[in-house]
């Protein structure tokens, strides 16, 4: 089963490129949609164990070092969902561009699926680089100056992160002679006191992974990359690429390799709290729609990291649920931002005014997304934030829990500013003729809004499901 997630997109790319005719170019879009739906279906079979044995039997046992557990399956489902959303929006582009875009989406899915399923630090690095290379190309595809600027900054910071992560891998390899998660976890558990070179390795690893995940103070590439890219690419980046790359790597390493080392957990908790506060404060001062959403993403990723840094099962559950919820509501916000930009042509907040009457569905789904981000019950964001804050309280990080709670108020502040500026109020004269967004945007935002509301309302069932699986 794990190999299928990496092999199916690869075979699709090969087939699409071998038979390179005009008809095949149109098929590329359909192939992309089909594969994202297939990924969602296969990951659901792992989660819910529907006909589990049948699908697990379709396994090509060539790559033996891949494995999926329940949390990995949730992330795989999220990847499929967000890739599906970002493909739906693109229904009206020309064929050559759709061909390139679909294939790059397939490559980035191979990269992200690989990051989730590996059991080895160096293979983690390899698939992180696959994701990064595909995202550099996707951001720079637009070929405007802001897009190239964002892509080059991302490339630069990603290469620095590579140097740091590989230094840490080299030191760990030097000391323990092995690279797999389980062996390293067992060996690190055995040591009573942490040797000095492991502390050096942890410093390098934290720096490198924080750059990849976009934590403060290494977040410089995030606003430029998110705002410079095109519509579907910014949805993909904000919704899943940063998270399935850097953030998932941090979560997996905290779960499997470093669960007994308190130094790394404290450092990540500290960085997470700074990210929550700094991201929220910087978002208030922004003038551009997508840049404000980018700083909000930094803040929410801070919540995920803080939840994981607790180390308790409740903390990890809260972190992964916030992972999924953030993917849905942040992608919804980016879908709406792209819809607004497509219809009005403006990116800056002070030029947009009073679009609520004209673009009703966009405004309505934005309200749902904002409330979920700020953590208002009964939407999904509230539940995952509550889990994280309770986990912080239980471990003893009481000031951090208070700060995380108060930051929700900051979140509400900047989103109210956003909502008021863009959607409420009277429309100015030039927006008299703006219509509702295209059908692709409407379908995407409705799907994501329904998921947000459903998970929020049905949350006791979700919690019960995880209790049954023994993760709580």
């Amino acid at each position: 089963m794990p190999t299928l997630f990496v092999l199916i997109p690869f075979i699709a790319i090969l087939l699409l490129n071998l038979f390179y005719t005009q008809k095949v170019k149109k098929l590329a879009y359909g192939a992309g949609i089909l594969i994202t739906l297939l990924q969602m279906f296969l990951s659901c079979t792992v989660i819910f164990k529907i006909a589990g044995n049948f699908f697990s039997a379709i396994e090509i046992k060539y790559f033996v070092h891949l494995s999926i557990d329940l949390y990995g399956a949730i992330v795989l489902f999220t990847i499929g969902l967000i890739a599906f959303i970002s493909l739906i929006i693109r229904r009206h582009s020309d064929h050559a561009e759709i061909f390139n875009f679909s294939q790059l989406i397939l490559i980035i899915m191979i990269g992200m699926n690989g990051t989730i399923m590996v059991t080895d630090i160096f293979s983690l690095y390899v698939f992180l680089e696959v994701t990064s290379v595909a995202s550099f190309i996707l951001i720079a595809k637009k070929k405007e100056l802001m897009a190239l600027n964002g892509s080059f900054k991302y490339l630069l910071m990603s290469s620095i992160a590579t140097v740091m992560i590989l230094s840490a891998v080299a030191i760990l390899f030097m000391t323990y002679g092995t690279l797999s998660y389980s062996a390293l976890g067992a060996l690190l558990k055995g040591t009573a006191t942490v040797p000095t070179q492991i502390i050096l390795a942890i410093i390098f690893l934290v720096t490198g992974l924080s750059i990849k995940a976009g934590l403060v103070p290494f977040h410089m590439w995030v606003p430029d990359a998110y705002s410079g890219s095109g519509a579907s690419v910014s949805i993909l980046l904000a919704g899943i690429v940063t998270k399935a790359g850097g953030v998932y790597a941090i979560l997996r390493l905290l779960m499997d390799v470093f669960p007994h080392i308190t130094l790394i957990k404290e450092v990540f908790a500290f960085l997470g709290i700074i990210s929550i506060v700094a991201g929220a404060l910087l978002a208030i001062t922004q003038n551009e729609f997508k840049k404000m959403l980018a700083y909000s993403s930094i803040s929410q990723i801070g919540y995920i990291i803080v939840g994981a840094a607790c180390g308790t099962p409740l903390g990890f559950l809260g972190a992964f649920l916030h992972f999924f919820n953030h993917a849905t509501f942040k992608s919804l916000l980016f879908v709406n931002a792209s819809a607004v930009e497509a219809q009005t042509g403006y990116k800056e907040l002070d030029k947009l005014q009073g679009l609520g009457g004209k673009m009703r569905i966009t405004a309505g789904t934005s309200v749902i997304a904002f409330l979920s981000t700020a953590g208002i019950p009964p939407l999904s964001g509230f539940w995952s934030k509550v889990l994280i804050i309770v986990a912080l309280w239980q471990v003893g990080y009481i000031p951090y829990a208070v700060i995380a709670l108060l930051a929700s108020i900051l979140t509400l502040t900047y989103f109210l500013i956003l909502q008021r500026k863009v959607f409420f109020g009277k429309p100015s004269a030039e927006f008299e003729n703006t219509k509702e967004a295209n059908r692709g945007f409407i379908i995407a935002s409705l799907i994501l809004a329904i998921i947000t509301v459903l998970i929020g309302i049905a949350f006791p069932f979700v919690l019960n499901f995880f209790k049954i699986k023994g993760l709580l």
Partner: protein
Amino acid sequence: MNNTVLYILLGLLVFSSLLTVMIKNTLKAVIALALVSAILTVIMFLMGAPLAAVFELSVCAGLVTAIFASTISLTDDPTPEPGKNKKRLGRYIYLPIIIAVVIGIIFITKPGLNFTTVIPAVSENTVQNTLWHERNLDIAGQIVVILAGVFGVVILIKERSKN
């Protein structure tokens, strides 16, 4: 004898990397980078990694130099920079200071950095066996990266004829 040669080569490595960052002309800096690759190849061969040394020589000293040279020729900056000679070398005044400070910190505090292995090596395969049987996932990753790179070069460098 072997150790002395290694030390001399390491010193040459640092010297040529200093040369690379301080040369004013970008093209000559790239050639100095190829020199760094060549010295690194010999060092790796002496340390017992012949296959990686060959890879480093053929790829980094060859392909990377070609990519840099073509990029430099395609982005030929026509505006000259007058009067920047003194300022350019002046920027590197801080480098010896930083190096001295870092090395001073390392030697004074002398942290318990103990680069020895805790767990001794188990079996010794050849590189071919390791690469193709145990780390075949890396090979798959490399194939996908190269595929992505091909897409990138095609998308970024191809200029669409305006209809």
